[in-house]
């Protein structure tokens, strides 16, 4: 079993098609939707976590690409710029998943990409532009 977190951007013409169901049925993968933003008449964005056998994941992703879906790995989407961070911890209490971990001894933060669902809630909390999102 492998897990991958990806952001799918799909064009207007694909929005009303049950793509994720096909993915589950035809490629034997589990799809967990983390976040969705679909604007009718525009493009849709879906953040998903897919798990399954490596070869099935590869095939599934290939299938999406053929349909014209743009695929980005999630890790690229939220960026913590350590140089700009003053280690105040202001962002930490707004994070719903615990992706911003506070070392209570040192009072410093660490950004755990694994847990981040790129919800963007931490961004307005940072007064130093130390967190960036590309979603």
């Amino acid at each position: 079993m492998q897990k991958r977190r990806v952001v799918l951007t799909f064009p207007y013409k694909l929005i009303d098609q049950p793509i994720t169901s096909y993915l589950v049925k035809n490629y034997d993968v589990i799809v967990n939707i983390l976040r969705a933003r679909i604007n009718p008449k525009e493009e849709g964005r879906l953040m998903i976590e897919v798990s399954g056998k490596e070869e099935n994941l590869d095939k599934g992703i290939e299938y999406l690409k053929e349909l014209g879906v743009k695929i980005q790995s999630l890790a690229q989407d939220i960026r913590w710029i350590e140089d700009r961070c003053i280690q105040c911890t202001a962002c930490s209490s707004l994070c719903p998943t615990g992706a911003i971990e506070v070392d209570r001894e040192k009072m410093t933060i660490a950004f755990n990409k694994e847990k981040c669902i790129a919800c963007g809630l931490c961004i307005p909390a940072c007064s130093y532009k130390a967190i960036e999102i590309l979603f």
Partner: protein
Amino acid sequence: MAKTIAEINEKIKKGKVVVVTAEEVIDIAEKKGIKKASQDIDVVTTATFGPMCSSGAYINIGHSKPAIKLGGGKTYLNDVPVYGGFAAADIFIGATALPDDDPRNKIHPGEFKYGGGHLIEDLAAGKDIKLVATAYGTDCYPRKKLETWINIKDINEAVLFNPRNACQNYNVAVNVSDKIIYTYMGILKPKLGNANYCTTSQLSPLINDPYYKTIGIGTRIFLGGGVGYVVWNGTQHNPNVPRTEGGVPKTPAGTIAVVGDLKKMSPEWLRGTSITGYGVNLTVGMGIPIPILNEEILRYTTVKDEEIYAPIVDYSNSESNILGEINYAQLKSGKIEVRGKNVSTASLSSYAKAKEIAGILKEWINSGNFLLGESVQLLPSVGSNISLKPLKKRPV
């Protein structure tokens, strides 16, 4: 045996001074006892690093040919309006000033991407700054318009001058209403969704000298990465507040006004700050050495997080209702209880960076490069005729 500042300075010059940070002193005093620790230790370094709204800088840009009198005209630096109501070439930059075309809170909450605080950071960083000025013109200052680049290394003076910094303790902000609010204390989620605090507690300068027995006019400090001085009490300085047994104020209390050469400061310790929905600000790094003149002063510096209390204040209405009080050990644990609810906490000032500053100041003193300033007048303390006056509005 009591020590004097002159004696401590002699030790600094001879390389024999003993300096510890306000965090380190806690364990040392616990092991050695107050008496022995006060004999062994000469200086305790304290520090803070957080947004300090009442900050600014004045600069003198030098005279152009033909000359312009900025006073009475309008001046902008990087589109930020600055105050020129002095003579011909002096300007004051306020940390919270915003460009005229900043959208502010038109689309709420505003982002406040650039303003006075960022301008001060850019000056300290040695970046070129665009100056645009208009004036009315006189016989002796005929020029009416000036557009040019300036740089901190070419101008006559650049001085950081902050009328109110390093507030002694501060509120813990929460929101009991059912909508999210954007405040100078950060983003507060509805229904006690989170709690924000903003001091460096056991490291914070005025918390370690609660009755201002050493910090006063003339105290030499670490300011924005350079050397600065305490020059007055800060605005809204109010020593007459409820205090703990150890003397630490349980609400905002004392403040200081500080000054220092901006040309020698660093953008690492002066950070432009964009507070969502509120405005811009300057985050200032400050370190203050406390001379251990006697046992009493040492005892104050051993104050620890669990002995420092702050009021929990509801920021969702203008009444600022106090919901309780809480100590900093609890605040720093990440969770507190308010009205029976578990609330996550976060800080707006940086304890980690303050610790770094306390360490740097310790290094400066140990290396013999930084002598203690003898204060020529202490700040007004408890019993002085001071109270915090609200503004009484009168019909015009």
